[in-house]
């Protein structure tokens, strides 16, 4: 059973994604990192679903994919607006939300 390999792959993807979210300044790259995280979750779901012989995991993965598509659509629209207003997509310059 390849379960371990799947889980390790998922964990690696997850870590890369977390690193990207924390360390990157470019908003597009942060969005891509979030996609990586979501997909690492998908891999875990599929791996366990394969092992348990049930299709629940497949179904969840499909939902995750759909939601990820919606999320990236909204995210890219925000990045685009940000670029139009500020001519930059750097997240470090974006701290108007400071309370």
């Amino acid at each position, binding site marked *: 059973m390849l379960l371990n390999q799947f889980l390790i792959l998922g964990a690696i993807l997850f870590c890369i994604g977390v690193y990207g*979210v924390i360390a990157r300044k470019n908003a597009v790259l942060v969005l891509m990192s979030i996609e990586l995280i979501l997909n690492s979750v998908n891999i875990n779901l599929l791996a366990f679903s394969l092992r348990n012989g049930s299709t629940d995991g497949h179904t969840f993965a499909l939902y995750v994919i759909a939601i990820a598509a919606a999320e990236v659509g909204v995210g890219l629209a925000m990045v685009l607006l940000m670029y139009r207003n500020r001519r930059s997509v750097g*997240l470090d310059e974006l701290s*108007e939300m400071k309370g």
Partner: protein
Amino acid sequence: MFVQAAETAEKVVLTSGWFLEHAYIIPLIPAFAFLLIIFFGKRMPMKGSEFGIASMVGALVFSGGAAYQWIQRVNGAGEEAFIEPVVKSWTWWQNGGFSFGIGQHIDGLSLTILVVVAFISTLVQIYSTEYLHGDRRYTHFFASLTLFSAGMLNMVVAENMIQLILGWEIMGLCSFMLIGHWWEDGANSRAALKAFFTTRTGDIGLLVGTSVLFFAANDWTQKELGLSGFSIRGLSAWALSGTPGQTAITVGAVALFIACIGKSGQFPLHTWLPDAMAGPTPVSSLLHSSTMVVAGVFLVARLYPVFFEGMNILGTNVNFIVVIGGITIVIAAALAFVQTDIKKVLAYSTVSQLGYMMMGLGAGAWLPAVFHIFTHAFFKACLFLAAGSISHSASHHSFDMKKDMGGLRKFMPITFTTWVISTLALCGVFPFSGFFSKDEIIDNVGHNGYNLFMIVGLAGAFLTAAYMTRATYLTFFGEPRGASAGEHHDEGHGHDAHDSHDAHAHDAHGHDSHDSHDAHGHDDHASHGPRESGPLITIPLIILATLAIGSGLLNATPFGEKWENMKKWVEPRAVVVNVHGMAEPTGSHGEVKLAAGAVAAEEEGGHHASPCGSETPEGGVCYAPQLNHAPFKWAKGAMSVGIVFAGMILSWLLCVQLYARKNKALVGLTQRNKLLGAGYAFLANKYYLDHLYERVIVRSIAHPIARGAYWVNQNVLDGIVNGAGIGSRKIAGWVYRNVDQKVVDGAVNGAGNAAQGAGGALQPVQSGKVNQYGALLFGAAAIGALVLVIINT
């Protein structure tokens, strides 16, 4: 294989061959070529078109080989034996205990369409190399065109409904890309969107119908045949087995037919087809002859048993399909009269001809309808390519018959000849191919008891002859007008109606060759008068015109049984087939059934010789319902040809009066009124006569009908859509005023005030840095995970 031919006295051994067994390769060739064009096309000497043409030729060779081996297979079998389709299936993917297959289902029907699609695609691609020469998205165009053919071929070879939907959707996507090929013009991209959304509306029916049929049929097909409920053979056998409940199969068939209405441009979803003329002419030709619009007709023909049982075809009442087909014939033919754009006339003509095919299928005339797909593909492709040839070489990229054409027969002899041949074929004049298919549809519709619809068919033939005569007259006779007469278009003209897209192509051409804006509209094409197109355009025209004459002979019913080759090769035989695993029939049972069928078929009409379609088959399954064929009578044929000629002559006389004489009278009148005053009563009277023709006869007969149809189109159908939009806006407004502003906002404001106090305490955490928030989030998640691990161990 689970199914074998019924055991007759001498056991039938069906021959096969390499091409038949490997027909699934046919759609893969253009699909592969599509990838090649996308990745390497721009670097090739012919900008990728060589991949497209080579792949279509390859597909043509493969389908031709398969068709030849199929004919051998049929000839090797007995007269009454069931010719088993060559089916292959592999598992595509599995999920939740269901397995979805992909493969091939090759029989006479799919081979007919395969050959036609591959053939027309080849010619259209050759034609496009000349027509789109120098276009700015030339490579992209060929990529889309090749994928489009791949989609249609895939749909035709499809073994099951899932694979069929795959091809169907590829075509929807590619038609969107091709119609909007010159998307810089807003009208073109709007037309592309309209086509896409209208067909998508129908596609909902496809998904619903497929699901309904799957859940209704899957248990039966798995148990009896070991096939999935998506499989075309399984669904056909299930529909005719007498087991399905009437509700399930009717709902499934109606839902699938809605998809066909959308795709095949039937009333009331036909509105996208004329707008789809915004695409380049080769696209219109391919889209309207062999791919896309015949997809819907093909689906009905493919799953005919489902529609046969679901719609109760050949039952006592009229059914949904025949009504929709009949309405479409008349509505579309009437609309063709008020068009000035030559491509729109052809578009409405296609809609009308598709109505014939649907009406034929709805009235149990399966073979004539399929044969009409076959013949129609050749002459309609030829007509569109001829229209493209005119705009390319004579009318300076305009499609306006009244403004920019006329008198072209002298300048374009080849285009003119091929156009006339195809027009005669379309109208159904005797030795041309349209006669053998269209007349058979009308004849069989009447024979099966749908007398009203036979009259509709004959009326449609009359209208077809009349509007095609009008188009021919305006284009090729009289005096050259507008661009054909050598007038140059000013900048403004390029932006009205539907010739604007060609102005864009021109623009690109200008940029490429001269790299300056001054070149716009004054390059090679504009600098001379009308002339014949080059060989890359005329040779496809000649080939198609030859087939417009000759293809009817493949099923020439009037010449007797020996000429009915399509019937022998293509029509599935309504025979009870023994299935392993079912209750074995008693020794001689199958034989008796077959013998009875053979004897009864000898009798005239052969009405319900086989139990298929009328009662529950015993000891086996049926894959096709028993249909009747009307015996050909020369009197009927002569009558319909007479009606066609009446339409042509009447239309010709009217055209001469309206367009030729009115012009002279008008010009003369204005000049002489200015110069000599109102002294020429004779001329004025002549003008008065033309006025009478136009105002009284045409307005009172043709215009109200056509306008009425157009009005329904514009006001009623569009009104419903707009009404729905306005209604939902009003509801939204009310919700906003009452619910949103008063209830929700009140609650939100209250909560906000409460939160403000709490927020102050947590202020330092809100650094405003997104990355820091991310770090906090993941840190919290990590702590949560640690806690979980500790608790669980």
